[in-house]
């Protein structure tokens, strides 16, 4: 690819990404005229999205029989357990990550 072609390629990726982020805001710019269905959809989706993003983090290891898959599942459960126990975001993330790093490097 020439430099111009590279710039066009990157520009296309910028346009594509930004279109998906800006489009709903442009279409529904006036809150009073936003359909109730869209507003309620916006209230409904986020909890589901948070769940989907957790699955997204596991997309490379799930359904593979590897030690990484096992380690990340264990570390995930540890994160969950610590969070249910102490409800302290930093503690949960720290313990979970430390657990994963230790498992990966010393097992």
């Amino acid at each position, binding site marked *: 690819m020439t430099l111009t072609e590279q710039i066009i390629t990157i520009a296309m990726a910028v*346009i594509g990404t930004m279109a998906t982020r800006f489009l709903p805001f442009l279409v529904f710019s006036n809150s009073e005229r936003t359909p109730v269905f869209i507003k309620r959809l916006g209230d409904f989706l986020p*909890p589901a999205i948070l769940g989907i993003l957790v699955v997204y983090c596991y997309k490379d290891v799930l359904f593979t029989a590897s030690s990484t898959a096992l380690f990340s599942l264990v570390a995930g459960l540890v994160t969950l357990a610590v969070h249910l126990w102490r409800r302290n975001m930093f503690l949960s*993330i720290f313990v979970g990550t430390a657990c994963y790093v230790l498992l990966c490097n010393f097992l």
Partner: protein
Amino acid sequence: MANRKETFLFAFRKSLPIMTGFLFLGMTYGIYMNQQGFNFLYPTLMALTIYGGSVEFIIANLLTKAFDPWAVLIVTLIVSSRHLFYAISMLDRYGNTGWRKPFLIFGMSDETFSLNYSTKVPLEFDKKKVMFTITILNQIYWVSGACLGGLFGSLIAINVKGLSFVMTALFIVMMTDQFLREDHHFSSLTGLFLSLGILAVTGKTYFMPITLFLLVVIFAILEKRKERFYDFD
């Protein structure tokens, strides 16, 4: 009302897990581009302008192939389509943010969206300023990581394997907090299990847009059948 410094510190504290994750993942991305033969300006500028991790990796790969701008646009639209749903969810929160609004929308990556959605901002803080600071900080982390990775390439020895798990842990924590504070778990549970099922069936590339599309269909059917199928918190 909290002053500038207090607002910054609150946002900075909230962004710390993403700082660790983004610096690390950004470096991985910069190193990847470096190994593909691109100088550091490429990962840095792509991190700055595209600002979407998964798309940046795909483009890094496509840049080494034959020139095909329309294919690039289509792939990007498919992979990024999840942002449509983030935007619909943030219409209200980003609604009255004035001059900050375009940047809040521009910087709405997966991590920034989830953090800005999940963060409960105490009353003494101006919510739009907190969200704006979080958005800026997160992008700074990502761009810095990409730049460093691109500059030093494999010279940076990433000795500690597995640090990127902070991101997974952060999402687990945000999901758990959401689950604990909500009255109905229908949305949370459907998102979690539907995406697992779709991932098993379609594989990792397209499971996210497909899951989100199906969620909208499910929501539409339930709303139609019951008028308002439940009241949100």
